[in-house]
């Protein structure tokens, strides 16, 4: 039973990889195979998970289960680290289907409640990943598009609005066209240097539209709005067409959730900033921004933005007028004021940590424990056993060691996962300890590491 569950997890993880990795590469050659993989729901249903379990030498399956677990972790991790150009100032409209089809219980507890819960998580994660972006929420009900929350950068506003939907029941039919038109209106005024995106959580298999949706699609294309759809029931032709047309022929942004976990993954994928396509790139510009410091005064003074007395605030770095909260535009001199932490939060998308490589037994003797956390690695077996172990899943190191190609240090799988998913730093490179290199040069790679990335940057 447990292995069954595990396998499903892997299957969906695979799909996630494809979604993340290929977004920026719209190539004809790969699109066919990609589509095949996208439908991959059927693959796990026919594969026999029990056959992948092989008894170890000691007659138990614990070693196999262990390596399967590790493979699962690793698979989640191996993503494309090409530093793509990404649109980080995003403007996204989240459209929730609130029609009667959402009361189905195939996703527990119901599609409606689950999508509301995930929508809240999505909002939190979205602002975590895209701190200077804007979000708005719309709903589709009774053939109408209703506004749930306005475009804003404040997560709590959206969450309370979504929370309020809990007391209502889904009813009526959805209208894709109405929703898209309203989203288009909401995105109309957004500046050209940001992205314009729509994400639809769509549980129905139909759309009752007042007019021709194809016209709406062509206006969306001319307005450079990208639409992504996550289906809850089954694939719908118009949805695929809509996604493909508004994303330059790339329909990977259309996904149909297999189960609860998959839905969660599909939604969380959208929080990663999308890669930008050069031909669609509107005018990019250099923005002058101020990074004001927080101050506290003994006596209250009026703030420039609301004229309310307050004791603390941020002083504009150019004209020193006091602002209550950031990000904001200085009301006196018009300088965009922002917390540098807002910007820094998204740097790990721009300078991703490169994937670490597996270490074969030949080189494993160099290290006995993980560089970062000190956990002991399994000892190197005798030479004749090096190749006897059956070839394991792709990406899993036989010696349980993973090597950073820059600093040549060895790490365990947990640190690998932690470094790539949470910290986004390599402990070895940052510590300046380079294996096998004399100490005189140890300082060099660390400083060059930062400089190295601009060269690798994809400038297409």
């Amino acid at each position, binding site marked *: *039973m*447990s292995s069954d569950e595990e396998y499903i997890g892997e299957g969906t993880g695979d799909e996630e990889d494809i979604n993340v990795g290929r977004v920026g590469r719209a190539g004809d050659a790969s699109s066919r195979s990609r589509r095949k993989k996208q439908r991959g729901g059927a693959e796990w249903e026919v594969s026999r998970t029990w056959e992948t379990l092989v008894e170890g030498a000691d007659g138990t399956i614990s070693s196999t289960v262990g390596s399967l677990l590790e493979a699962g972790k690793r698979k989640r991790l191996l993503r494309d680290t090409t530093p793509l*150009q990404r649109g*980080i100032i995003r403007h996204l409209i989240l459209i929730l289907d609130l029609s009667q089809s959402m009361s189905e219980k195939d996703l527990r507890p119901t599609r409606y409640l689950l999508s509301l819960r995930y929508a809240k998580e999505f909002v*939190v994660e979205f602002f975590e990943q895209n701190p*200077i972006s804007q979000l708005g929420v719309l709903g589709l009900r009774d053939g109408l598009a209703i506004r749930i929350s306005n475009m804003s950068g404040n997560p*709590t506003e959206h*969450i309370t609005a979504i929370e309020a939907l809990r007391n209502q029941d889904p009813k009526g039919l959805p209208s894709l066209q109405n929703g898209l038109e309203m989203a288009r209106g909401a995105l109309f005024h957004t500046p050209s240097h*940001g992205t314009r995106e729509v994400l639809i959580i769509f549980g129905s298999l139909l759309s009752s539209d007042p007019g021709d949706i194809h016209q709406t699609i062509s206006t969306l294309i001319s307005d450079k709005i990208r639409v992504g759809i996550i289906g809850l029931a089954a694939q719908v032709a118009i949805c695929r067409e809509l996604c493909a047309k508004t994303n330059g022929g790339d329909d990977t942004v259309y996904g149909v959730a297999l189960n609860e976990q998959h839905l969660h993954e599909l939604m969380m994928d959208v929080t990663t900033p999308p890669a930008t396509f050069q031909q669609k*790139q509107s005018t*990019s*510009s*250099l923005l*002058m*921004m*101020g*990074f*004001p*410091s*927080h101050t*506290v005064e003994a006596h209250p003074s009026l703030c420039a933005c609301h004229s309310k007395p307050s004791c603390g605030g941020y002083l504009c*770095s*150019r004209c020193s007028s006091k602002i209550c909260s950031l990000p904001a535009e200085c009301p006196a*001199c*018009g*300088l*965009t004021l*922002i*917390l*540098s932490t807002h910007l*820094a*939060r*998204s*740097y*790990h998308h*721009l300078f991703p940590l490169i994937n670490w490589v597996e270490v074969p037994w030949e080189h494993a003797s160099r290290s*006995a*424990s993980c560089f*970062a956390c*000190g956990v*002991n690695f399994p000892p190197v077996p005798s030479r004749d056993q090096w190749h006897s172990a059956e070839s394991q899943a792709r990406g899993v190191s036989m010696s349980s060691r993973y090597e950073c190609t820059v600093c040549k240090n060895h790490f365990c799988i*947990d640190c690998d996962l*932690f470094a790539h998913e*949470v*910290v*986004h*730093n*390599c*402990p070895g*490179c*940052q*510590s*300046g*300890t380079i294996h096998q290199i004399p100490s*005189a040069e140890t*300082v060099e790679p*660390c400083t060059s590491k930062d400089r190295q990335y*601009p060269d690798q*940057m994809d*400038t297409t």
Partner: protein
Amino acid sequence: MNAVDATEHYEARADDPSPSLLTIILDTNPHAWATLEDSLPLATAVANLLVFIDAHLACNYANEVAVVASHTHKAAWLYPSHEQQQQQEQQQQQPHQNAPKHIRTDGDGDVAMKGETQGKAQPVNKYRPFRLVEEQVTRNLRHLLESTDLADVKASSSTMMAGALTLALSHINRRGIAWADAHGGDLDTAQEGASSTRLKDSATSTSTSSTGEGLQSRILVLSVSSSTDSAHQYIPIMNAIFACQRLHIPIDICKLRGDAVFLQQAADATRGIYMALAHPSGLLQYLLMAFLPDQRSRRHLVLPTRVDVDFRAACFCHRRVVDIGFVCSICLSIFCEPPENGDCLTCGTRLDLADYGTKPAVLARKKKKKKLRPNGAAAADTPTPVGTPGP
């Protein structure tokens, strides 16, 4: 499936005080300690620190401590030192001498030192955890300082703060996993739920002890270097700060000298304590009063907080710390002046110095824009950007 099981255990657990893991990052930058020589020599500081560590270990029998040195050219473990630990284990397992084959020369030194200290008749009655920490920290610190040669010190005057933070985080992660394994808690759910629990924290100010369970970790940084030297580590440091924020690990800063822009931001973002010591000679007192309480106790204390937070950033081109910068709209790189040719240095995008501010047209500025457009390549020749827009 596993997660579901574990969370149930998790909630059903009795509410016994969980141990805390204190990770101390000691900035051992020789340049900075040289200037502190009069008020607080390094030896005194380390002695104070050891007393503080003992106090922490005495609070709860399960409390743990880890010490990382952030040196000029590398970040290194002072305690626990993994190589030696492992070697000791090996030696215990196999008393006959085949262990030193793996380990470098300090392995031999290890044994010798131990013999020495025993010969000197160290207090036998000393609480063993205290003794272990003290021995290892002093030994490893001595080893680190001895291994530093002139070239290393000359090469840079900054400190490997980002590396030390990353090492500390890796250790915390490992200990967290180990603790969860031993006690049936599930770390993964705790981590993945971190974003949602954070929300709860902000929404309902009475945080429902989401961090109360499990191993409580915190980081204390004894900082002596000024951060302008470490501007090239801006991104890694920020990454580490955000990781701490996600994992609810407060970073406490005890500042002995210099200015620490990024560390201020670290303390502010992770809700840690920031203290710049006016009298470094009273280090122990500050440590014991301000930094000893763990997260659980801190809820009931009025904490020393720093109200002015310096939010300046480091520019990517010259590593200067700036308060007004130019930001590429594509990759959000910060520049202290418009880059040459108007090309972003990071992503290579062609940039035009756009109409920041977007106020209704001011005549002078419009002219300038027109001047810029036709010969776009010359846009960057003017070092100062478009003049201040009118009132």
